[in-house]
Every structure is written in structure tokens, then in C-alpha cells.
């Protein structure tokens, strides 16, 4: 009986995974289609990739998107890490909980609300819409996720390590630089990575605050998709899929190796 149930569950899971991946594979397969639609596969071609690489406007947008993602992730990681330090250090529970609640507001808010309220904000302060407003917005909505990634590491930080540092005469900034930061580095990296994906993934907020001249990849795909099928977008998704895979495998290897190091340490203690 157990074997039969196992079989059903495998079929179910297989179905779920097929549905999850079918649209993505579908996109990539048709990026090699020599026709112009996603209806019939006429033959193999790399023409759409050639068009993609010749499309300087699109390449400029890709570079802009990457620049925004990297810059916003860097700034957000810095501010978010400092924020996590603050939240961890506050002694009054009420203040701590309020800070945490404020931190989480932007995580649970729908994108449209963030976009609309930021648009009002930028217009009120007459900050021009474009690169600056998009960069500020991406930084702003990435900060809370960095805080949430760094906080657990800070909680694990052993108090006696800080005492030892203080006993050995370390100043505040030395303790921060030589004890705390190295210990929470995995959390900081996870936060940076999450901020990066948040920025690359965002459409709605950018759509609100981008103005006329500036565009990111998501906004560009949206406006092209509204005009109908163009296999150049398929070629783009093929490239992005490969890029994503590389990023994830890289992240997986980094996190696995740090986990293994942790495990080894634990095992060492047990022996």
C-alpha cells in the first residue's frame, strides 16, 4: 500500500514540476524558432539571438538594470546591516518591536502601494523621475529584506565573544570590525543576494517611478509584451534563464560550503 501511495505522490509532483517549468522551457524552445510566432516550430535558428545582440537599446537597458541592481543592493546591504545592529541592540522590547514592525511594512505592502506612495513622495520633494528615483526606490524596498537576513546571524552571535573582545581591550569599532562583521558575513551576503534578486525582479514599483526617459528590463518587457509576440523576448529569456542558473548554482555552492564548514565545526565539538 505504501508503495502505491508513493507512486501517486511521484506522479503528482511530476505534474506540478512540469507545470512550473513548462512555460519557461516553452519560451526558450521558441527562441530558436525560425518562424515569428510561438504557435509552430518551423526550424532551428539563432537569428533572434543575433537580433538581440544587435539591439543596442535593449542592451543598454540590460546594463542599466544591472547597474541599478548592484548599486541598490550595495547601499541597501550597508544600511540594512546597520539597521539590524540597531534592532539587535535596543533594550526596550516595545521600541524593538516597533522597529521590526516598521521594517516589515515594506515587505508585506503590495507593490502598487509602494510604487504609488513613492511616486507621491518623489513628486512632493520634486525629485526628477528617472535613474535617481528608481535607484532610491530599489534601495528602499531592499533594505528590510537585508535586515531580516542579517538579524538571525546577530542573534546567534555569542555574548561571551563580545565580552572577550572587550576584556582584551578592543574598542567599539574594533569589536565591530574584527568580531561582529566577520561573524555575520554569511547573513550580509544572503541579504545582498536577496536585494539583488528583489531589484532585478521588480516591475510594479519601477513602473510607477520610472518616468519617461528611463527604463529597466521588466518595464521594457511589459511594454513589448503589450504589443504582442516578438521572439527577441524569447531569446532574452533564454539568456536570462542561463544567467539565473549560474547565479543560483554559485549561491548554492557558497552556502553549501559555509554550511559544511559549520557542520565540521559542530562535529569537532562533539568528538
Amino acid at each position, binding site marked *: 500500500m505504501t508503495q502505491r501511495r508513493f507512486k501517486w505522490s511521484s506522479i503528482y*509532483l511530476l505534474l506540478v514540476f512540469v507545470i512550473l517549468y513548462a*512555460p519557461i522551457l516553452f519560451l526558450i524552445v521558441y527562441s530558436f524558432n525560425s518562424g515569428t510566432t510561438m504557435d509552430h516550430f518551423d526550424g532551428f535558428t539563432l537569428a533572434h539571438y543575433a537580433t538581440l545582440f544587435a539591439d543596442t537599446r535593449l542592451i543598454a537597458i540590460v546594463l542599466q538594470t544591472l547597474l541599478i541592481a548592484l548599486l541598490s543592493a550595495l547601499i541597501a546591504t550597508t544600511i540594512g546591516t546597520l539597521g539590524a545592529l540597531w534592532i539587535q541592540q535596543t*533594550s526596550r522590547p516595545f521600541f524593538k518591536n516597533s522597529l521590526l514592525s516598521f521594517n516589515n*511594512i515594506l515587505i*508585506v505592502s503590495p507593490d502598487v502601494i509602494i510604487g504609488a506612495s513613492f511616486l*507621491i513622495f518623489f513628486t512632493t520633494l520634486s525629485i526628477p523621475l528617472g535613474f535617481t528615483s528608481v535607484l532610491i526606490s530599489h534601495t528602499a524596498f531592499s533594505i528590510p529584506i537585508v535586515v531580516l537576513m542579517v538579524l538571525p546571524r546577530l542573534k546567534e552571535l555569542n555574548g561571551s565573544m*563580545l565580552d572577550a573582545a572587550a576584556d582584551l581591550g578592543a574598542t567599539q569599532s574594533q569589536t565591530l570590525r574584527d568580531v561582529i562583521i566577520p561573524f555575520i558575513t554569511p547573513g550580509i551576503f544572503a541579504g545582498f543576494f536577496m536585494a539583488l534578486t528583489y531589484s532585478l*525582479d521588480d516591475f510594479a514599483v519601477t513602473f510607477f517611478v520610472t518616468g519617461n526617459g528611463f527604463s529597466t528590463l521588466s518595464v521594457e518587457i511589459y511594454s513589448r509584451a503589450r504589443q504582442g509576440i516578438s521572439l527577441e523576448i524569447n531569446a532574452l529569456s533564454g539568456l*536570462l534563464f542561463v544567467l539565473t542558473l549560474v547565479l543560483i548554482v554559485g549561491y548554492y555552492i557558497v552556502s553549501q560550503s559555509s554550511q559544511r564548514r559549520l557542520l565540521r565545526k559542530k562535529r569537532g565539538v562533539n568528538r
Partner: protein
Amino acid sequence: MTQRHFTSWTYYVPYGLWVGLFVIAPVGLIIYQSFLDLHHHFTLANYQAYFESGTYLMMTVNSIWWAFLITLFTLLISYPAAYYIHQLKHRQLWLLLTILPTWINLLLKAYAFIGIFSQAGVVNQFLSLFGIGPQQILFTNFSFVFVATYIQIPFMILPIYNALDDLSGSYINASHDLGATNWQTFSKVVWPLTLPGVKAGVQAVFIPSLSLFMLTRLIGGNKVITLGTAIEEHFLTTMNWGMGSTIGVVLIVAMVLIMIITGERRQDRGRVR
């Protein structure tokens, strides 16, 4: 325990500024803007229009209904999936494979469905084999709910999986030892103990589903109007920011209500323990 201060207060200025400028100020501004008319005069007319004209209320009810359907279907598909993934041997890898599609840009996935659901698309070719002929699939309510569910599934699987992971296997063994059937074990032990995960998933799916304006445009063919669609329309097309903000405030209220509904259980559990 003595409080350690390993940083001086100047380190906190950036984060404090962020809270003030990008958390508190925008919410305040959207509430303030909801009381302004097109000429920036203070007015309650937006709220009056919202509550008196049936269209806004109907739109809100519809939006909540669609979000409910999306959440329901997502949950029905995701719970068994999370349950079975958790029983697999290389479950971490499978979990990663579940999350992987979320890293593909949402717009690209929506765009894929424009091709799949089109008049001459794959689904219609398949249907034609059975003589059901080309059907209008794209730009229908069905396609909107389908694509939204598709996009949300990983966000539901993840918290449920985590809840299952937290569940100690000894509870299940104990339940079986005490003579419970598989179904009893599930309904009396597994389900109640994974409910926090389900609630977290519902939270993660329901709130964004109220505001998926890009899907209503690309897939729903403007037939489905969600709260998000209405806000986008008022802000970027008709430029009536006051009314857009009013709907925004409604969306914020809806969000807070959902958080209260899905959050209260945690306190209950704390009290019982």
C-alpha cells in the same frame, strides 16, 4: 544581562532616516493625498465617490473574490506538493527547484502564457485534436486566475514546507502508535501543526493577488479589474491621484485586516503554551 553597545548612535542614522522617509512618510502621504481633489483642495469627495458609486465597491468585492480564488487554488495545489517534496530524499534540491521559477522575471512568465493561450497556441492546438476547436482562452477570467495561481505556487509551497520541516517526526509516530489512521494523523496532527505555514502562505499570496495589475492587463485583457489595476489606472492614466490614493488606502486596510486574521493564531498558540 548588561547591554552592550558596540556601535555609536551615528551608525543608526541611515536606517532611522530610511524608516522615516520611506516607511512612515509614504504611508502618510498616500493617506493625505486621498483627501485631495484634482485641484489639491482638501475634500472627502474621494471617499464619498468610493462608497456611493456602486462600481468602486463592486470592483473591490470582485478583486477580493479573485484574490480568494487564486489563494484557494494555490493552496490546494501547494499543500500536497510541499507534503510530498518533504518526503523526498533530496528534498533540499527539490525545494530549490521549486523556488527557481520565482527567479525568472514575472513578466517573462506572463509573456509565455500569451503564446501558450493564444488563438493558434499550444493549448488550442491540443484542444483541436479532440475537436473542441480554437477557444478564446487568453483575455478571459480563467486565464487570469490560472496564470496568477501559476506564479504564486512557489510562494505557498515554501512556508508550508518550512512548517512541515519544523514538525517533529515523533508526533507522527506517536499518532500512529496510538492507533490513528493516516487520515486522522493528518487532520488531527499534521494539519493543525502546519497551520502557521499555511497562514504565512495565504498572507504571501492573497495580498499580492489584490494588486496584480500587469496580469490583468497582459493576460486578463482588462476584463478583471483588481484594486491594483484601479490604482495604476488612476495614477498613471487618468492622473487622478486623489482617487487612486483612496483606493490605495482601501488596499492598505484590506492588507492590515488580512494580517490580523492570519496573525492572531500565533498569539493564541503562545497563550496555550
